[in-house]
């Protein structure tokens, strides 16, 4: 039996009800703002801005016979919207209002989705816990003492507690897949260049990709179909058509999934090892074949990533200077206008990364750091390509640990950076990755696995995730949560 309350349902079923006239778009779009938000939002703090009249206008303008008609969507606050502020979780943007919608936002609206607000995030997407939001942290709905992951913690938590069935984040080094794993929802980072970046406030342009959160594999597929189209406003998009994912439910017979025989056992929580083993068993049960492989890019991928991402960030964030928009510090002289505005406007993690990136690009260090990292990246791309000659997808941890406690890593940036070891490879290689929830571990925290595939393998990833979803139905929803959390259900 499918859940009764609209907020517990999938985006597909909400849209079907709206199209059939059995549910108003208004009721669909507002569903999460009643019971779930009343119960959770004050503690979790997933939302940075929402506005009832903006929601009502969005409902009124949404087409009623489209793929996502009436489906409420929360957007990470680094996606530009005309009807809500866009803060990037930072003070430096002040009261800035975008005069345009990001291309992915426009596509969602054309497909009938209703943007209900903006989700919390680490400032400028720099962080793995959403503790670096200038507007206070988001908490994990499974354990309020723990982080929801980051940087897209707000959208992940909102999907987890039932505010919305669908949300968009951005993933530069795992910022969709890691919070999805911590919050027990699906999180897709598509192939680089498949979703437009126009209107996504840039962090590391060559790594950034808009990602999708949902509780159901079919919802991820529907959102991908709506969003993955070429955009003349983004010159970095990939040539050709995005893969057709309409057969996401076709099964995994003869799929070869790579099983990391080496590295992940070191420093990976037992609960996650257990989730991986369970996932491998379910995939085999569904007809897929296990192929052992050596997971390669270890800590040197982390070094490569943090050089390139910070270098690009130092450049991308140069525009926040108080001259044209956002916060402006009082000053009667240009240099101090810049230094005070940026000193007051940016938080500690953003300042740290701008400094690191500026250093990596500076005369005398450019070749040693930035250029060397570029070459290392080329090698990582090749290594992933070689690994995918032997398997169709890789089964990997999304994170080495379950959700950690607030404050646990904020004082040790390096530990925080190292926890990205399983996710950043996909960003460096430009390939798609999908976090798949595997139910709750013994302590009641979600455990997840990650699927990686070669470029344009989104269909394979969704088929594998669907196999896990179907196999795991009875096992992965612990009693006591199923009424509050809509997953899995249909």
């Amino acid at each position, binding site marked *: 039996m499918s859940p009764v309350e609209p907020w517990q349902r999938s985006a597909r079923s909400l849209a079907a009800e709206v199209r059939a006239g059995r549910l108003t778009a208004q009721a669909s779009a507002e569903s999460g703002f009643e019971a779930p938000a009343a119960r959770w939002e004050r503690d979790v703090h997933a939302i940075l801005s929402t506005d009832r009249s903006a929601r009502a206008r969005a409902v009124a303008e949404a087409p009623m016979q489209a793929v996502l008609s009436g489906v409420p969507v929360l957007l990470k606050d680094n996606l530009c919207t005309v009807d809500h502020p866009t803060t990037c979780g930072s003070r430096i943007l002040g009261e800035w209002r975008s005069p345009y919608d990001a291309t992915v936002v426009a596509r969602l609206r054309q497909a009938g989705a209703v943007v209900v607000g903006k989700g919390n995030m680490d400032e400028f997407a720099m962080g793995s816990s959403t503790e670096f939001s200038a507007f206070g942290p988001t908490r994990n709905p499974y354990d309020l003492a723990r982080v929801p992951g980051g940087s897209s913690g707000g959208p992940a938590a909102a999907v987890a507690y039932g505010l919305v069935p669908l949300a968009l984040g951005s993933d530069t080094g795992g910022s969709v897949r890691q919070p999805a794993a911590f919050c027990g929802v699906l999180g897709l980072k598509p192939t680089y260049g498949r979703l437009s970046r126009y*209107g996504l406030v*840039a962090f590391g342009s060559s790594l950034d990709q808009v990602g999708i959160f949902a509780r159901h594999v079919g919802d991820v597929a529907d959102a991908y179909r709506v969003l993955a189209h070429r955009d003349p406003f983004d010159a970095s998009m990939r040539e050709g058509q995005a893969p057709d994912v309409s057969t996401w439910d076709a099964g995994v017979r003869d799929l070869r999934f790579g099983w990391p025989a080496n590295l992940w056992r070191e420093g990976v929580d037992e609960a996650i090892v257990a989730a991986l083993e369970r996932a491998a068993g379910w995939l085999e049960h569904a007809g897929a074949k296990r192929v052992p492989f050596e997971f390669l890019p270890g800590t040197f991928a982390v070094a490569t990533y943090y050089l390139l991402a910070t270098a690009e960030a130092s450049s991308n964030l140069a525009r926040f200077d108080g001259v044209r928009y956002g916060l402006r510090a009082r000053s009667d002289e240009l240099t101090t206008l810049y230094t005070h505005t940026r000193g007051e406007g940016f938080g500690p993690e953003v300042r740290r990364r701008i400094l690191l990136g500026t250093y990596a690009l500076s005369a005398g260090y450019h070749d040693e750091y930035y250029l060397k990292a570029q070459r290392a990246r080329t090698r990582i791309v090749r290594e992933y390509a070689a690994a995918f000659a032997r398997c169709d997808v890789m089964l990997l941890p999304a994170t080495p640990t379950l959700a950690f406690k607030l404050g646990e890593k904020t004082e040790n940036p390096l530990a925080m950076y190292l926890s990205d070891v399983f996710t950043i490879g996909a960003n460096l290689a430009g390939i798609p990755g999908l976090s798949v929830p595997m139910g709750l571990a013994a302590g009641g925290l979600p455990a997840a696995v990650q699927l990686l595939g070669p470029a344009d393998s989104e269909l394979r990833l969704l088929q594998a995730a669907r196999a896990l979803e179907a196999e795991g139905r009875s096992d992965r929803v612990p009693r006591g949560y199923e009424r509050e959390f809509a997953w899995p259900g249909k």
Partner: protein
Amino acid sequence: MAWEVVIGLECHVQLKTRSKMFCGCPNTFGALPNTNVCPVCLGLPGALPRTNRVAIAHALLLGSVLGCRVREESVFARKHYFYPDMPKNYQISQYDRPLCEGGELSIDRDGVRTGIALTRIHCEEDAGKSFHPERHGDRRLSRVDFNRAGVPLLELVTEPVLRSPAECAAFLTALRRLVRWLGISGGDMEKGQLRCDANVSLRPAGSTPLGTKTELKNLNTIKGVERGVAAEIARQAGILDAGGRVTQATLLFDADRDRLALMRTKEQAHDYRYMPDPDLPVLRVSEAMRAEARRATPELPWAREARFRDALQLPAYDAAVLTESRELSDYLEACAPEGQHKLASNWLMTEVLRWIRERGASIEEWSARVSAERFREFLARVATRELPGPIAKQVFAWLPEEDGDVAALLERHGVRVASGEATLRPLVRAVMAEHAAVVAQVLAGEERPFGFLVGQVMKKSGGQAVPQEVQRLLREELAERART
């Protein structure tokens, strides 16, 4: 000691395109401040650049004409520095892989055409424009107009091979003529469409290593380049003559006061932290794009100038003036009757250019009113003397104001033209018969009565005859009489 001057120029050419370099905003001069702007050229969060293909085609055309090596794959790079008129606080430019390298542009050196070697040509975006500072009560305000931000620019860099201020001026003049000729830029320095920085150094005559250079900015006119460079040469020579050393620095030329001011020293030089722009794919130049550049290459101004001189037998001065503009030289070729290029040149150089100058108009406006075909018919009649001088001038004045060919204009204004020997010789003979005494005086050597005879012929022609022609015929007839 004798110093040898070494100068390299860095020229910026604003490209004539409909839209800006990386967005769809109109590329026009003189719009209200901050009206030709969008999220991209304002550097708003989330906006991304996309490359203007026409600007690239313009760059390829110039590169092809100047004999540059064109890279199959060139890369846009971000050049970082903070300034309020720079929306992103980086400029999208090119760095280690520019579109064009090598090539040369020729100037006249001691009467010999000499190629000035180029280092590179690359594409980039212009910055906005700052207006400093205005007083508002006790506050000072600077304003920025972002209409210019994102306008496509070519940067063209020469090797350090220019030797004098005059050569700098000649190089810029040649460059301006070329970019206008190719139709890729207005080339108007007053409007900032062509700008120039100069790197100047001195070394002992005959020595090879380059001396310490300084960079001169703000050389906004060809005169300014000449005077700025001359001032800097004098300054450096003064330092060196006194046994001092030149410090590497960037200087600003103040054209109003003819003075150089220190902008920054080497220690204050920017670290631009170049990196490839991850928002833009590698710029690939296909064989089709190269072929298009070759196809679009017209006869060049100096080749046409030489042809006008050598094949059309025009004076050097005429050839130079007429080939200053491609449209003007095209018009000359189209309007000159067979073998009458000199005549056509005379009319263009004097009357047509005067008409244009007086109205602040252009050759395009002239040719819109007087097509080359119509002007050709007019010139043909002038050539055969069917239109005597004063009447020709009258007809010329009507041409841009009214429709119709020459006959129609004469008809409309009721002008009859008496000219040609067949008409005039009988009149000359009649006057000589009527005034035999005067003829005798003239034959006896008096000059003054000759004018009387001319007047009488003019009178008989009803004022329509051409005096020069009358005089010629009268002299012929008198000479004939003297012999008999």
